[in-house]
């Protein structure tokens, strides 16, 4: 039960965003500055604790030179867990 919860939390984390940000050598604070939000907001999106609006998703994708699919698309099996 506990393992399932850990797995669920891990899957909810937006690791794609974290890796894209790291790939551009940006800190959370720098990405936050680029898209006009607080560092905490970027941290919470990466941790899966906050679902951003489509507008903010687009701003993040533009800042990281990625598409929405690259950063925010989840396979159906992941969504259902």
């Amino acid at each position: 039960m506990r393992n399932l919860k850990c797995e669920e939390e891990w899957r909810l984390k937006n690791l794609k965003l974290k890796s894209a940000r790291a790939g551009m050598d940006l800190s959370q604070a720098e990405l936050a500055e680029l898209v006009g939000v607080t560092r905490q907001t970027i941290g919470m999106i990466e941790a899966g604790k906050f679902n951003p609006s489509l507008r903010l998703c687009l701003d993040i994708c533009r800042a990281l030179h990625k598409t929405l699919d690259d950063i925010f698309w989840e396979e159906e099996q992941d969504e259902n867990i």
Partner: protein
Amino acid sequence: MRIFSWKKVVDEREEMEMMRVEHYMFWFVFWALLISILVQVLVMKADFYQVAGEWAVFMLMAVGTVIGELKGGHFDYTSRPGWKSYLVYSVVAAISVMGLTLFRGIIGGYYHHSSDAVLAVVITGIFAGVITGICLAGAGTFVKHRRKKLEEEFEEED
């Protein structure tokens, strides 16, 4: 140098969290104010003018909320406009008013016979239930009409 500006400086997450806090506090104050008015009127036997200020604030909150929700085509978090929800809420209102009437009568010593209590409680209960039902039916009909209008407004053009 500008010392103060009305420009929003919070991002969408901060704004959402602030609105959530304000939402919970609004409803807490709303029910606390209602309880406060009821306690003063029913238990402490206050005259209306003693609670007039609180009543005015309460009605402002209630009427403002209803107007705002109706304008947006919203009815309720947990039910859709329809006779079932009107009936459920009318019965809840009737039972609440019956309880309050009975309590008020007992505290005030208004009932000399049990038949007095039954008559007063049943009549006020039915009255409250019918009034609530009519108001909800009116609001529900308006919400349906408003939703249809909003749907037409944002309907895709072929």
